[in-house]
């Protein structure tokens, strides 16, 4: 397995996980992401949402990118991020060596049409602040997800 091409970020990620595209590892990956988000100061609901977005992105890579192959490599990188507004946040970059697809072709569907499926991209965009799909240099896709920690509205305490 090759390493992913250099990320768009200049510094190495604080955490960098390589996993195989086996649905049994979604759960551990979610726990990692939620656990890190919690330590970065996100509240419980936000941690759950970030983990959900990562889960949905991994599901799509497994189902669409790798056609349910269980041995494709996936890389998940995590950075604590400081944005211009002085509020902190988390940046998650997910890379694969799977099928490439035009980023414009990845979009959530109209939710008025009730049918099974077609919710993943909508969920990802709904819970994250920034969502960017790109083709990697030679093979595979890269998804960048950012969530800001907001000037937490009074009432909702930041995590412990």
């Amino acid at each position, binding site marked *: 397995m090759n390493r992913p091409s250099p990320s768009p970020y200049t510094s190495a990620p604080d955490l960098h996980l390589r996993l195989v595209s086996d649905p049994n590892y979604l759960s551990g990956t*979610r726990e990692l992401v939620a656990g890190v988000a919690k330590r970065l100061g996100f509240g419980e609901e936000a941690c*759950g949402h970030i983990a959900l977005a990562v889960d949905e992105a991994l599901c799509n890579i497994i189902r669409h990118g790798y056609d349910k192959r269980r041995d494709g490599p996936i890389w998940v990188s995590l950075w604590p991020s400081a944005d211009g507004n002085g509020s902190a946040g988390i940046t998650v970059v997910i890379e694969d060596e799977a099928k490439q697809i035009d980023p414009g072709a990845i979009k959530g569907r109209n939710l008025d049409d009730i049918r099974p499926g077609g919710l993943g991209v909508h969920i990802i965009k709904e819970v994250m602040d920034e969502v960017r799909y790109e083709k990697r240099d030679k093979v595979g896709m890269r998804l960048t997800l950012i969530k800001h920690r907001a000037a937490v509205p009074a009432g909702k305490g930041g995590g412990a």
Partner: protein
Amino acid sequence: MSEEMRVDVTREGDTVVVAPVGEVDLSRSPRLRSVLREAQASRPKRVVIDLSEVEYMDSSGVATLVEAFQVARRNGSKMVLCGLMDRVKSIFEIARLDTIFTITANREAALRS
């Protein structure tokens, strides 16, 4: 390699209650789907899906429930979800499905509905 998800199925008169336990994600939703198919095969009057022991659900779980909902509608049977934890309720809201499904607080209310 991993254990199968536990899904409890009980029949109470014309009603079948299906209660998955654990995390309904891509690794587990196929099992929930096959249990639901089997439970719906006898065309029960009412299908109650008790989610009180489901700690996590992603869109593959939601898709499974939408599918069961469509089968129920075709069969002329009623389908009710109950016992959703907040984080599970949250995904139904994000998917704007919280108004499509009949959702009750707990199993007792679902059986009375």
